[in-house]
């Protein structure tokens, strides 16, 4: 056997050994990639949907509205300790992101876990504009009740923790949407209850973020007026046409 042939065989053998060593790792990597196809929006969410931090953040006991522990047909306030900004638009973003990310239990969730708040604006006339990702439409259980509870949880959480937003417009991916998930009309503006009407004010708190049930939560009907006799209710999410 010539020296050149021996060298070639040795090199090939070395390559085979290296291949055998790296093959399991490659297989695992391929499996991981095939299991988690990452859309552009998912990649965006990973970057965006983290709690927002601003220089004026102060930890407060924020009152959040998720589904009731005892009934999936109504909302119930829960207190969550989160940092909230002094800037109204940033504060609203922080609240809505917490509403998505921090339900006390999965079954109390009102908004889909993979939904993203893309933007929040406040106009000078007190109109808030919340722009959600498509997952708010695709992930919300279809039905008048569930869609109404989703909107109510948003407006009641905003109303309980901040002033200056009187009504809310919901956009989906920057666009007007006909419905939330096939039933609830999103063409109008949803009234946001004022702080005075909210169950309790947000109070400063020094501790780290944690979730706990509100001390004495009076079960809130959807929209504080949604699942009640048919009477106009200022704190409900009945829409107002712009």
């Amino acid at each position: 056997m010539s020296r050149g042939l021996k060298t070639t065989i040795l090199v090939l053998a070395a390559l085979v050994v290296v291949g055998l060593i790296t093959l399991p790792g490659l297989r695992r990597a391929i499996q991981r990639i095939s299991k988690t196809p990452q859309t552009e929006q998912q990649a965006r969410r990973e970057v965006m949907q983290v709690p927002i931090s601003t220089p004026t953040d102060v930890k407060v006991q924020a009152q959040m509205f998720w589904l009731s522990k005892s009934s999936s047909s109504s909302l119930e306030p829960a207190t969550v300790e989160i940092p909230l900004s002094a800037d109204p638009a940033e504060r609203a973003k922080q609240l809505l992101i917490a509403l998505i990310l921090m339900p006390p239990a999965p079954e109390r969730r009102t908004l889909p876990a993979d939904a993203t708040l893309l933007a929040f604006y406040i106009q000078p006339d007190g109109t808030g504009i919340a722009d959600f990702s498509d997952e708010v439409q695709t992930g919300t259980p279809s039905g008048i009740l569930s869609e109404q509870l989703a909107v109510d949880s948003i407006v009641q959480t905003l109303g309980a923790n901040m002033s200056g937003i009187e009504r809310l417009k919901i956009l989906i991916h920057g666009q007007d949407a006909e419905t939330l998930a096939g039933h609830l009309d999103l063409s109008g503006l949803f009234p946001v209850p004022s702080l005075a009407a909210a169950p309790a004010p947000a109070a400063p708190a020094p501790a780290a973020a944690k979730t706990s049930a509100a001390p004495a939560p009076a079960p809130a009907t959807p929209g504080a007026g949604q699942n009640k006799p048919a009477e106009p209710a200022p704190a409900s999410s009945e829409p107002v046409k712009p």
Partner: protein
Amino acid sequence: MVLSFARLVRISLEGQGLRVILTRQANEDPSFDDRSKVANGQRGVIFITLHVSSTGQPGTVRVYSEPAALAQSATAAAPRTSLVSWDRAQIGSLDLSRRLAELIQIQMAQRFRGSPETPLLAPVRQLRTIAAPAVAIEVSSVSLPDRRLLDQMAPAIADAVARAVAAFRLIYESGGK
């Protein structure tokens, strides 16, 4: 499921001597406006939209009508005209819609324990463009493990709607008085 409910409701209403038009006959998916066109092209019509939800206490039925807030703000913003805006066609029928919803909800509460005794207000998209008394009926829920439980609700739902509509007809034909 919804279509089978609708067919039973149709039979019950026709038993009251009423003419019933279904806005869909099979698995087609007409738009909100397509359905509204069918309803708004009739005279002396009422509109009922049926839904089976994926949430809510199983075995209950909720009845919705359009909230009055829609009318108040729209009236303030709209220019004076005798024409009815398609997008706000429900405005002129809000009171009658609410009365129809009350009558149906009472019947449902009598048949399905846990259902509210009074109707609810919700901005249901389909109702907004109906220029006549219009309500949405939502049955809970498709999450029932046994579909037969939902099927068993259908005859009572149909009967409840027929009785309520018969009572409403007297109000409607007397001009809402």
